[in-house]
Protein backbone atom coordinates (compact mmCIF):
# COMPACT_ATOMS: atom_id res chain seq x y z
CA UNK A 1 0.00 0.00 0.00
CA UNK A 2 1.27 3.46 -0.90
CA UNK A 3 2.66 5.55 1.91
CA UNK A 4 0.52 8.74 2.26
CA UNK A 5 3.56 10.75 3.32
CA UNK A 6 5.34 9.68 0.12
CA UNK A 7 2.32 10.68 -1.98
CA UNK A 8 2.22 14.15 -0.39
CA UNK A 9 5.97 14.48 -0.83
CA UNK A 10 5.69 13.59 -4.53
CA UNK A 11 2.82 16.05 -5.03
CA UNK A 12 4.82 18.75 -3.23
CA UNK A 13 7.94 18.12 -5.26
CA UNK A 14 6.05 18.18 -8.55
CA UNK A 15 4.20 21.36 -7.57
CA UNK A 16 7.48 23.10 -6.73
CA UNK A 17 9.05 21.82 -9.98
CA UNK A 18 6.02 23.07 -11.92
CA UNK A 19 6.20 26.51 -10.31
CA UNK A 20 9.92 26.58 -10.98
CA UNK A 21 9.27 25.83 -14.66
CA UNK A 22 6.61 28.54 -14.85
CA UNK A 23 9.02 31.05 -13.34
CA UNK A 24 11.70 30.00 -15.83
CA UNK A 25 9.22 30.36 -18.71
CA UNK A 26 8.24 33.85 -17.53
CA UNK A 27 11.91 34.85 -17.26
CA UNK A 28 12.64 33.56 -20.78
CA UNK A 29 9.53 35.31 -22.15
CA UNK A 30 10.50 38.70 -20.73
CA UNK A 31 14.14 38.26 -21.71
CA UNK A 32 13.07 37.46 -25.30
CA UNK A 33 10.93 40.60 -25.37
CA UNK A 34 13.78 42.62 -23.84
CA UNK A 35 16.25 41.47 -26.51
CA UNK A 36 13.71 42.04 -29.26
CA UNK A 37 13.25 45.63 -28.16
CA UNK A 38 16.73 46.46 -26.82
CA UNK A 39 19.06 44.11 -28.71
CA UNK A 40 20.32 46.93 -30.92
CA UNK A 41 21.68 48.68 -27.80
CA UNK A 42 24.08 45.77 -27.35
CA UNK A 43 24.78 45.69 -31.10
CA UNK A 44 22.87 42.39 -31.16
CA UNK A 45 19.51 43.00 -32.82
CA UNK A 46 17.19 40.08 -33.41
CA UNK A 47 17.97 38.97 -36.96
CA UNK A 48 15.18 39.62 -39.44
CA UNK A 49 16.40 36.78 -41.65
CA UNK A 50 16.25 34.29 -38.76
CA UNK A 51 12.74 35.50 -37.92
CA UNK A 52 11.56 35.17 -41.52
CA UNK A 53 13.10 31.70 -41.73
CA UNK A 54 11.17 30.69 -38.59
CA UNK A 55 7.99 32.22 -40.04
CA UNK A 56 8.45 30.18 -43.19
CA UNK A 57 9.09 27.01 -41.20
CA UNK A 58 6.25 27.40 -38.68
CA UNK A 59 3.69 29.17 -40.85
CA UNK A 60 4.08 28.96 -44.60
CA UNK A 61 5.38 25.38 -44.64
CA UNK A 62 2.42 24.32 -42.48
CA UNK A 63 -0.16 25.69 -44.96
CA UNK A 64 -0.91 22.42 -46.83
CA UNK A 65 -1.66 20.42 -43.68
CA UNK A 66 -3.40 23.43 -42.09
CA UNK A 67 -5.64 23.76 -45.17
CA UNK A 68 -6.51 20.07 -45.15
CA UNK A 69 -7.35 20.12 -41.42
CA UNK A 70 -9.36 23.33 -41.66
CA UNK A 71 -11.39 22.03 -44.61
CA UNK A 72 -12.06 18.78 -42.79
CA UNK A 73 -13.16 20.61 -39.63
CA UNK A 74 -15.46 22.83 -41.70
CA UNK A 75 -17.04 19.84 -43.42
CA UNK A 76 -17.37 17.95 -40.14
CA UNK A 77 -19.07 20.91 -38.49
CA UNK A 78 -21.42 21.31 -41.45
CA UNK A 79 -22.40 17.63 -41.38
CA UNK A 80 -23.01 17.65 -37.61
CA UNK A 81 -24.85 20.98 -37.65
CA UNK A 82 -27.22 19.92 -40.42
CA UNK A 83 -27.92 16.64 -38.62
CA UNK A 84 -28.50 18.11 -35.15
CA UNK A 85 -30.43 21.18 -36.28
CA UNK A 86 -32.39 19.03 -38.73
CA UNK A 87 -33.92 17.27 -35.71
CA UNK A 88 -35.76 20.54 -35.00
CA UNK A 89 -36.22 21.55 -38.63
CA UNK A 90 -33.76 24.41 -38.11
CA UNK A 91 -31.05 23.36 -40.54
CA UNK A 92 -31.30 26.72 -42.34
CA UNK A 93 -29.66 28.29 -39.27
CA UNK A 94 -26.62 26.00 -39.46
CA UNK A 95 -24.47 28.86 -40.74
CA UNK A 96 -24.72 30.63 -37.34
CA UNK A 97 -23.23 27.75 -35.37
CA UNK A 98 -20.63 27.00 -38.03
CA UNK A 99 -19.44 30.60 -38.36
CA UNK A 100 -19.21 31.29 -34.64
CA UNK A 101 -17.69 27.97 -33.62
CA UNK A 102 -15.12 28.06 -36.42
CA UNK A 103 -13.98 31.63 -35.83
CA UNK A 104 -14.14 31.68 -32.02
CA UNK A 105 -13.12 28.12 -31.23
CA UNK A 106 -12.09 25.61 -33.82
CA UNK A 107 -9.65 27.53 -36.01
CA UNK A 108 -7.36 28.77 -33.22
CA UNK A 109 -7.58 25.50 -31.28
CA UNK A 110 -6.95 23.18 -34.23
CA UNK A 111 -4.13 25.38 -35.53
CA UNK A 112 -2.68 25.47 -31.99
CA UNK A 113 -2.74 21.70 -31.70
CA UNK A 114 -1.31 21.29 -35.20
CA UNK A 115 1.55 23.73 -34.62
CA UNK A 116 2.26 22.33 -31.15
CA UNK A 117 2.74 18.90 -32.70
CA UNK A 118 4.54 20.10 -35.78
CA UNK A 119 6.65 23.04 -34.62
CA UNK A 120 6.65 22.82 -30.79
CA UNK A 121 8.30 19.42 -31.02
CA UNK A 122 10.81 20.73 -33.58
CA UNK A 123 11.72 23.68 -31.30
CA UNK A 124 12.20 21.38 -28.30
CA UNK A 125 14.24 18.84 -30.28
CA UNK A 126 16.47 21.51 -31.82
CA UNK A 127 17.20 23.21 -28.52
CA UNK A 128 17.73 19.92 -26.71
CA UNK A 129 20.21 18.73 -29.35
CA UNK A 130 21.99 22.08 -29.25
CA UNK A 131 22.22 21.94 -25.44
CA UNK A 132 23.65 18.42 -25.50
CA UNK A 133 26.19 19.36 -28.19
CA UNK A 134 27.27 22.40 -26.12
CA UNK A 135 26.13 24.69 -28.94
CA UNK A 136 24.24 26.87 -26.45
CA UNK A 137 27.38 27.10 -24.30
CA UNK A 138 29.33 28.03 -27.44
CA UNK A 139 26.92 30.92 -28.10
CA UNK A 140 27.32 32.16 -24.54
CA UNK A 141 31.09 32.14 -24.57
CA UNK A 142 31.10 33.94 -27.93
CA UNK A 143 29.11 36.74 -26.30
CA UNK A 144 25.99 35.91 -28.34
CA UNK A 145 22.94 35.90 -26.11
CA UNK A 146 21.21 32.53 -26.68
CA UNK A 147 17.76 33.95 -25.90
CA UNK A 148 18.21 36.67 -28.52
CA UNK A 149 19.69 34.24 -31.05
CA UNK A 150 17.46 31.21 -30.53
CA UNK A 151 14.28 32.21 -28.69
CA UNK A 152 13.31 35.68 -29.91
CA UNK A 153 12.98 34.73 -33.62
CA UNK A 154 10.89 31.68 -32.70
CA UNK A 155 8.63 33.68 -30.39
CA UNK A 156 8.13 36.51 -32.88
CA UNK A 157 7.47 34.03 -35.71
CA UNK A 158 4.84 32.11 -33.76
CA UNK A 159 3.15 35.25 -32.42
CA UNK A 160 2.86 36.54 -35.99
CA UNK A 161 2.08 33.30 -37.80
CA UNK A 162 -0.45 31.73 -35.44
CA UNK A 163 -3.10 34.44 -36.06
CA UNK A 164 -2.36 34.23 -39.80
CA UNK A 165 -2.89 30.47 -39.75
CA UNK A 166 -6.06 30.89 -37.69
CA UNK A 167 -7.36 33.46 -40.17
CA UNK A 168 -6.55 31.14 -43.06
CA UNK A 169 -8.29 28.27 -41.24
CA UNK A 170 -11.38 30.50 -40.73
CA UNK A 171 -11.56 31.14 -44.44
CA UNK A 172 -11.01 27.53 -45.51
CA UNK A 173 -13.38 26.04 -42.91
CA UNK A 174 -16.19 28.43 -43.71
CA UNK A 175 -15.77 27.91 -47.43
CA UNK A 176 -15.68 24.12 -47.09
CA UNK A 177 -18.71 24.14 -44.80
CA UNK A 178 -20.49 26.53 -47.18
CA UNK A 179 -19.98 24.22 -50.15
CA UNK A 180 -21.52 21.31 -48.23
CA UNK A 181 -24.39 23.27 -46.66
CA UNK A 182 -25.39 25.06 -49.86
CA UNK A 183 -25.37 21.76 -51.77
CA UNK A 184 -27.41 19.96 -49.10
CA UNK A 185 -29.96 22.75 -48.66
CA UNK A 186 -30.14 23.74 -52.34
CA UNK A 187 -29.12 27.21 -51.26
CA UNK A 188 -26.82 29.47 -53.25
CA UNK A 189 -23.22 29.63 -52.04
CA UNK A 190 -23.32 33.45 -52.19
CA UNK A 191 -26.34 33.56 -49.88
CA UNK A 192 -24.55 31.28 -47.39
CA UNK A 193 -21.53 33.57 -47.39
CA UNK A 194 -23.70 36.68 -46.95
CA UNK A 195 -25.47 35.11 -43.96
CA UNK A 196 -22.13 34.10 -42.46
CA UNK A 197 -20.62 37.57 -42.84
CA UNK A 198 -23.72 39.12 -41.32
CA UNK A 199 -23.65 36.91 -38.25
CA UNK A 200 -19.97 37.37 -37.56
CA UNK A 201 -18.90 40.43 -35.57
CA UNK A 202 -15.42 41.91 -35.51
CA UNK A 203 -15.18 40.90 -31.84
CA UNK A 204 -15.64 37.23 -32.78
CA UNK A 205 -12.71 37.40 -35.17
CA UNK A 206 -10.52 39.19 -32.63
CA UNK A 207 -11.49 36.61 -30.01
CA UNK A 208 -10.11 33.83 -32.21
CA UNK A 209 -7.03 35.74 -33.23
CA UNK A 210 -6.27 36.66 -29.60
CA UNK A 211 -6.43 33.01 -28.66
CA UNK A 212 -4.18 32.05 -31.58
CA UNK A 213 -1.59 34.60 -30.45
CA UNK A 214 -1.70 33.24 -26.90
CA UNK A 215 -1.29 29.69 -28.21
CA UNK A 216 1.72 30.82 -30.24
CA UNK A 217 3.37 32.13 -27.06
CA UNK A 218 2.56 28.90 -25.22
CA UNK A 219 3.99 26.68 -28.00
CA UNK A 220 7.20 28.73 -28.23
CA UNK A 221 7.82 28.86 -24.48
CA UNK A 222 6.97 25.22 -23.78
CA UNK A 223 9.25 24.10 -26.63
CA UNK A 224 12.11 26.32 -25.48
CA UNK A 225 11.81 25.43 -21.78
CA UNK A 226 11.64 21.71 -22.42
CA UNK A 227 14.46 21.81 -24.94
CA UNK A 228 16.75 23.69 -22.59
CA UNK A 229 16.01 21.34 -19.67
CA UNK A 230 17.19 18.23 -21.51
CA UNK A 231 19.22 15.66 -19.64
CA UNK A 232 20.99 12.67 -21.11
CA UNK A 233 21.59 11.98 -24.78
CA UNK A 234 19.29 10.99 -27.62
CA UNK A 235 16.82 9.45 -25.16
CA UNK A 236 16.61 12.77 -23.34
CA UNK A 237 15.86 14.57 -26.62
CA UNK A 238 13.01 12.15 -27.31
CA UNK A 239 11.60 12.63 -23.82
CA UNK A 240 11.60 16.44 -23.90
CA UNK A 241 10.11 16.44 -27.41
CA UNK A 242 7.18 14.26 -26.33
CA UNK A 243 6.79 16.21 -23.09
CA UNK A 244 6.77 19.47 -24.98
CA UNK A 245 3.92 18.35 -27.27
CA UNK A 246 1.84 16.93 -24.42
CA UNK A 247 2.27 20.03 -22.23
CA UNK A 248 1.63 22.42 -25.13
CA UNK A 249 -1.63 20.73 -26.11
CA UNK A 250 -2.78 20.51 -22.50
CA UNK A 251 -2.00 24.17 -21.88
CA UNK A 252 -3.69 25.18 -25.14
CA UNK A 253 -6.93 23.43 -24.14
CA UNK A 254 -6.84 24.87 -20.60
CA UNK A 255 -5.91 28.37 -21.81
CA UNK A 256 -8.69 28.14 -24.41
CA UNK A 257 -11.26 27.50 -21.69
CA UNK A 258 -9.92 30.28 -19.43
CA UNK A 259 -9.71 32.73 -22.34
CA UNK A 260 -13.28 31.91 -23.45
CA UNK A 261 -14.58 32.31 -19.88
CA UNK A 262 -12.80 35.59 -19.24
CA UNK A 263 -13.77 37.20 -22.53
CA UNK A 264 -17.41 36.24 -22.36
CA UNK A 265 -18.16 37.27 -18.76
Amino acid at each position, binding site marked *: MANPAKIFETIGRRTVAGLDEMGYAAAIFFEAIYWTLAGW*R*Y*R*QPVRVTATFAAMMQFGVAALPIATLLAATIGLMLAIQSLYSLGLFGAEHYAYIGIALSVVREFSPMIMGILIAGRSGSAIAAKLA*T*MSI*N*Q*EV*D*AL*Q*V*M*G*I*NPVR*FLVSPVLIALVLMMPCLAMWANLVSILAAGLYVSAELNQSFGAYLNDTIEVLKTGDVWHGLGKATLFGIIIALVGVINGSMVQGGAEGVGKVTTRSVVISITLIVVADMIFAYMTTQ
Partner: protein
Amino acid sequence: MTNQTLTAEAVNQANRPSAEDIAARRKVIEVDHLDWSFGPRQVLFDINLDVREGEIMVIMGGSGSGKTTLLRHLVGLMPPLPGKIKLLGKDMGALSRMQLLDLKRRIGVAFQFGALFSSMSVSENVKLPLRELTDLEERTMDIMANMKLEVCNLSGFGHLMPSDLSGGMMKRASIARAIVMDPKLIFLDEPSSGLDPVVSSALDDLILKLRDAMDISVVVVSHDVESAYKIADRITILDKGQILISDRVDAVRNSANERVQNLLHRRSEQAEIDPTEYLRRLAGD
Protein backbone atom coordinates in the same frame (compact mmCIF):
# COMPACT_ATOMS: atom_id res chain seq x y z
CA MET B 1 56.58 8.59 -32.86
CA THR B 2 58.20 9.04 -29.44
CA ASN B 3 61.32 10.40 -31.11
CA GLN B 4 59.25 12.82 -33.16
CA THR B 5 57.43 14.01 -30.04
CA LEU B 6 60.67 14.43 -28.17
CA THR B 7 62.12 16.44 -31.04
CA ALA B 8 59.09 18.72 -31.22
CA GLU B 9 59.14 19.03 -27.45
CA ALA B 10 62.82 19.96 -27.55
CA VAL B 11 62.14 22.57 -30.23
CA ASN B 12 59.36 24.10 -28.18
CA GLN B 13 61.49 23.96 -25.06
CA ALA B 14 64.15 25.97 -26.84
CA ASN B 15 61.51 28.52 -27.91
CA ARG B 16 59.88 28.69 -24.49
CA PRO B 17 60.06 32.08 -22.85
CA SER B 18 62.12 32.10 -19.66
CA ALA B 19 60.50 32.20 -16.23
CA GLU B 20 61.68 35.79 -15.74
CA ASP B 21 60.35 36.79 -19.13
CA ILE B 22 56.92 35.34 -18.37
CA ALA B 23 56.83 36.83 -14.86
CA ALA B 24 57.42 40.29 -16.33
CA ARG B 25 54.37 40.04 -18.59
CA ARG B 26 50.86 41.30 -17.87
CA LYS B 27 48.43 38.85 -16.28
CA VAL B 28 45.58 37.91 -18.60
CA ILE B 29 43.87 35.60 -16.13
CA GLU B 30 43.79 36.00 -12.35
CA VAL B 31 41.79 33.62 -10.21
CA ASP B 32 41.53 34.47 -6.53
CA HIS B 33 40.16 32.14 -3.87
CA LEU B 34 37.62 30.41 -6.08
CA ASP B 35 35.45 27.77 -4.40
CA TRP B 36 32.56 25.95 -6.00
CA SER B 37 30.03 23.34 -4.90
CA PHE B 38 27.35 21.35 -6.65
CA GLY B 39 24.83 21.09 -3.82
CA PRO B 40 26.59 19.58 -0.82
CA ARG B 41 29.56 18.37 -2.93
CA GLN B 42 32.42 20.85 -3.09
CA VAL B 43 34.38 20.48 -6.33
CA LEU B 44 36.79 23.42 -6.22
CA PHE B 45 38.74 24.44 -3.13
CA ASP B 46 40.38 27.84 -2.86
CA ILE B 47 41.72 28.00 -6.44
CA ASN B 48 44.39 30.67 -7.05
CA LEU B 49 45.84 30.84 -10.52
CA ASP B 50 47.27 33.27 -13.00
CA VAL B 51 48.14 33.13 -16.69
CA ARG B 52 50.44 35.64 -18.37
CA GLU B 53 50.32 37.25 -21.77
CA GLY B 54 51.53 34.94 -24.55
CA GLU B 55 51.76 31.98 -22.22
CA ILE B 56 50.43 28.47 -22.80
CA MET B 57 49.01 27.10 -19.57
CA VAL B 58 47.92 23.48 -19.50
CA ILE B 59 45.49 22.51 -16.76
CA MET B 60 45.65 18.80 -16.04
CA GLY B 61 43.98 16.41 -13.69
CA GLY B 62 42.17 13.11 -13.56
CA SER B 63 38.47 12.65 -14.17
CA GLY B 64 36.44 14.50 -11.55
CA SER B 65 39.40 16.64 -10.50
CA GLY B 66 37.44 19.83 -11.23
CA LYS B 67 39.28 20.98 -14.35
CA THR B 68 36.17 21.27 -16.51
CA THR B 69 34.36 23.16 -13.74
CA LEU B 70 37.32 25.52 -13.47
CA LEU B 71 37.27 26.03 -17.25
CA ARG B 72 33.53 26.81 -17.15
CA HIS B 73 34.24 29.46 -14.52
CA LEU B 74 37.07 30.93 -16.57
CA VAL B 75 34.96 31.28 -19.72
CA GLY B 76 32.02 32.81 -17.86
CA LEU B 77 29.62 29.87 -18.00
CA MET B 78 29.56 29.76 -14.20
CA PRO B 79 29.61 32.73 -11.85
CA PRO B 80 32.94 33.41 -10.10
CA LEU B 81 31.37 33.33 -6.65
CA PRO B 82 32.72 33.20 -4.05
CA GLY B 83 36.10 34.42 -5.21
CA LYS B 84 37.19 36.59 -8.05
CA ILE B 85 38.18 35.97 -11.67
CA LYS B 86 39.85 38.66 -13.76
CA LEU B 87 40.10 38.13 -17.51
CA LEU B 88 42.25 40.58 -19.49
CA GLY B 89 42.31 42.81 -16.41
CA LYS B 90 38.50 42.89 -15.98
CA ASP B 91 36.79 41.51 -12.89
CA MET B 92 34.11 39.27 -14.39
CA GLY B 93 31.87 39.51 -11.32
CA ALA B 94 31.80 43.32 -11.44
CA LEU B 95 31.05 43.81 -15.13
CA SER B 96 27.78 45.07 -16.55
CA ARG B 97 26.00 42.97 -19.17
CA MET B 98 27.41 45.17 -21.95
CA GLN B 99 30.96 45.00 -20.57
CA LEU B 100 30.72 41.23 -20.20
CA LEU B 101 29.61 40.87 -23.82
CA ASP B 102 32.52 43.06 -24.92
CA LEU B 103 34.94 40.97 -22.88
CA LYS B 104 33.63 37.74 -24.40
CA ARG B 105 34.34 39.11 -27.87
CA ARG B 106 38.01 39.22 -26.88
CA ILE B 107 38.27 35.58 -25.85
CA GLY B 108 37.81 32.38 -27.83
CA VAL B 109 36.76 28.93 -26.70
CA ALA B 110 37.05 25.59 -28.48
CA PHE B 111 34.97 22.89 -26.85
CA GLN B 112 35.94 19.26 -26.42
CA PHE B 113 33.53 17.97 -29.09
CA GLY B 114 33.73 21.09 -31.23
CA ALA B 115 30.23 22.42 -30.46
CA LEU B 116 29.90 23.37 -34.12
CA PHE B 117 26.38 24.25 -35.20
CA SER B 118 25.19 21.17 -37.04
CA SER B 119 22.82 23.14 -39.27
CA MET B 120 25.61 25.37 -40.62
CA SER B 121 28.58 24.62 -42.87
CA VAL B 122 32.10 24.86 -41.45
CA SER B 123 32.54 28.25 -43.08
CA GLU B 124 29.23 29.55 -41.68
CA ASN B 125 30.26 28.28 -38.24
CA VAL B 126 33.53 30.18 -38.41
CA LYS B 127 31.76 33.31 -39.67
CA LEU B 128 29.07 33.20 -36.98
CA PRO B 129 30.80 35.46 -34.41
CA LEU B 130 31.63 37.94 -37.17
CA ARG B 131 28.08 37.90 -38.48
CA GLU B 132 26.48 38.29 -35.06
CA LEU B 133 28.91 40.62 -33.34
CA THR B 134 30.26 42.89 -36.08
CA ASP B 135 28.95 44.99 -38.95
CA LEU B 136 31.45 43.65 -41.47
CA GLU B 137 30.49 43.10 -45.07
CA GLU B 138 29.93 39.56 -46.29
CA ARG B 139 33.04 39.67 -48.48
CA THR B 140 35.23 40.75 -45.55
CA MET B 141 33.75 38.02 -43.38
CA ASP B 142 34.50 35.46 -46.09
CA ILE B 143 38.12 36.62 -46.27
CA MET B 144 38.57 36.52 -42.49
CA ALA B 145 36.94 33.09 -42.18
CA ASN B 146 39.05 31.69 -45.02
CA MET B 147 42.21 33.07 -43.40
CA LYS B 148 41.45 31.32 -40.12
CA LEU B 149 40.48 28.11 -41.88
CA GLU B 150 43.81 28.22 -43.69
CA VAL B 151 45.71 28.77 -40.43
CA CYS B 152 43.96 25.67 -39.09
CA ASN B 153 44.76 23.66 -42.25
CA LEU B 154 41.13 23.53 -43.28
CA SER B 155 41.43 25.48 -46.48
CA GLY B 156 38.95 24.11 -49.02
CA PHE B 157 36.78 22.40 -46.41
CA GLY B 158 34.58 25.39 -45.57
CA HIS B 159 31.63 24.11 -47.58
CA LEU B 160 31.41 20.84 -45.63
CA MET B 161 28.88 20.28 -42.89
CA PRO B 162 30.17 19.39 -39.39
CA SER B 163 28.81 15.85 -39.80
CA ASP B 164 31.20 15.37 -42.75
CA LEU B 165 34.31 16.16 -40.68
CA SER B 166 36.70 13.80 -38.93
CA GLY B 167 37.42 14.26 -35.22
CA GLY B 168 40.64 16.17 -35.87
CA MET B 169 39.02 18.43 -38.49
CA MET B 170 36.14 19.12 -36.13
CA LYS B 171 38.58 20.29 -33.45
CA ARG B 172 40.49 22.45 -35.90
CA ALA B 173 37.25 23.98 -37.19
CA SER B 174 36.30 24.74 -33.61
CA ILE B 175 39.69 26.42 -33.08
CA ALA B 176 39.21 28.40 -36.32
CA ARG B 177 35.91 29.70 -34.94
CA ALA B 178 37.55 30.48 -31.59
CA ILE B 179 40.24 32.65 -33.22
CA VAL B 180 38.13 34.35 -35.89
CA MET B 181 37.62 37.49 -33.78
CA ASP B 182 41.40 37.73 -33.18
CA PRO B 183 41.11 37.14 -29.44
CA LYS B 184 43.88 37.85 -26.95
CA LEU B 185 43.10 34.68 -25.03
CA ILE B 186 41.79 31.28 -26.08
CA PHE B 187 40.61 28.27 -24.10
CA LEU B 188 40.85 24.77 -25.50
CA ASP B 189 38.97 21.96 -23.80
CA GLU B 190 40.62 18.56 -24.28
CA PRO B 191 41.91 19.30 -27.79
CA SER B 192 43.64 15.96 -28.19
CA SER B 193 41.02 13.66 -26.69
CA GLY B 194 39.78 10.96 -29.04
CA LEU B 195 42.47 11.68 -31.63
CA ASP B 196 45.20 9.36 -32.85
CA PRO B 197 48.78 10.35 -31.86
CA VAL B 198 49.66 11.81 -35.30
CA VAL B 199 46.59 14.05 -35.48
CA SER B 200 47.01 14.95 -31.82
CA SER B 201 50.62 15.99 -32.45
CA ALA B 202 49.56 18.09 -35.45
CA LEU B 203 47.03 19.82 -33.22
CA ASP B 204 49.76 20.56 -30.68
CA ASP B 205 51.81 22.14 -33.47
CA LEU B 206 48.79 24.23 -34.43
CA ILE B 207 48.44 25.51 -30.84
CA LEU B 208 52.11 26.50 -30.78
CA LYS B 209 51.77 28.14 -34.19
CA LEU B 210 48.78 30.15 -33.01
CA ARG B 211 50.59 31.38 -29.93
CA ASP B 212 53.65 32.39 -31.93
CA ALA B 213 51.83 33.86 -34.93
CA MET B 214 49.01 35.65 -33.16
CA ASP B 215 50.71 36.31 -29.82
CA ILE B 216 47.77 35.02 -27.86
CA SER B 217 47.60 33.37 -24.47
CA VAL B 218 46.29 29.83 -24.48
CA VAL B 219 44.69 27.83 -21.69
CA VAL B 220 44.43 24.14 -22.49
CA VAL B 221 42.49 21.70 -20.36
CA SER B 222 43.86 18.26 -21.02
CA HIS B 223 44.84 14.94 -19.55
CA ASP B 224 47.35 14.19 -22.28
CA VAL B 225 50.73 14.29 -20.53
CA GLU B 226 52.85 14.11 -23.72
CA SER B 227 50.91 16.93 -25.30
CA ALA B 228 51.27 19.03 -22.13
CA TYR B 229 55.05 18.54 -22.08
CA LYS B 230 55.20 19.57 -25.71
CA ILE B 231 53.12 22.74 -25.67
CA ALA B 232 52.99 24.06 -22.13
CA ASP B 233 54.96 26.93 -20.67
CA ARG B 234 53.42 26.10 -17.34
CA ILE B 235 51.33 23.18 -16.10
CA THR B 236 48.71 23.32 -13.37
CA ILE B 237 47.65 20.02 -11.88
CA LEU B 238 44.30 19.72 -10.16
CA ASP B 239 43.40 16.89 -7.86
CA LYS B 240 40.12 16.57 -5.98
CA GLY B 241 39.35 20.23 -6.62
CA GLN B 242 42.67 21.54 -5.33
CA ILE B 243 45.75 22.77 -7.14
CA LEU B 244 48.55 20.32 -6.46
CA ILE B 245 51.14 22.27 -8.37
CA SER B 246 51.29 25.12 -10.87
CA ASP B 247 54.75 25.57 -12.29
CA ARG B 248 56.99 25.35 -15.31
CA VAL B 249 57.13 22.03 -17.14
CA ASP B 250 60.47 20.91 -15.71
CA ALA B 251 59.45 21.73 -12.17
CA VAL B 252 56.23 19.75 -12.56
CA ARG B 253 58.05 16.86 -14.17
CA ASN B 254 60.57 16.68 -11.34
CA SER B 255 58.10 17.36 -8.56
CA ALA B 256 58.58 15.28 -5.44
CA ASN B 257 54.84 15.22 -4.83
CA GLU B 258 53.70 11.61 -5.10
CA ARG B 259 50.21 12.50 -6.38
CA VAL B 260 51.72 14.63 -9.14
CA GLN B 261 53.97 11.76 -10.19
CA ASN B 262 51.07 9.31 -10.01
CA LEU B 263 49.10 11.48 -12.41
CA LEU B 264 51.99 12.08 -14.79
CA HIS B 265 52.84 8.38 -14.90
CA ARG B 266 49.22 7.22 -14.95
CA ARG B 267 49.51 5.27 -11.70
CA SER B 268 46.34 4.69 -9.72
CA GLU B 269 46.62 5.63 -6.07
CA GLN B 270 46.70 2.72 -3.67
CA ALA B 271 44.10 3.30 -1.03
CA GLU B 272 44.00 1.30 2.15
CA ILE B 273 40.63 -0.43 2.21
CA ASP B 274 39.11 -1.97 5.30
CA PRO B 275 37.06 -4.94 3.94
CA THR B 276 34.44 -4.70 6.70
CA GLU B 277 33.98 -0.97 6.15
CA TYR B 278 33.83 -1.54 2.39
CA LEU B 279 31.08 -4.17 2.72
CA ARG B 280 29.17 -1.91 5.08
CA ARG B 281 29.37 0.94 2.57
CA LEU B 282 28.13 -1.29 -0.27
CA ALA B 283 25.20 -2.42 1.87
CA GLY B 284 24.36 1.20 2.62
CA ASP B 285 24.57 0.77 6.40
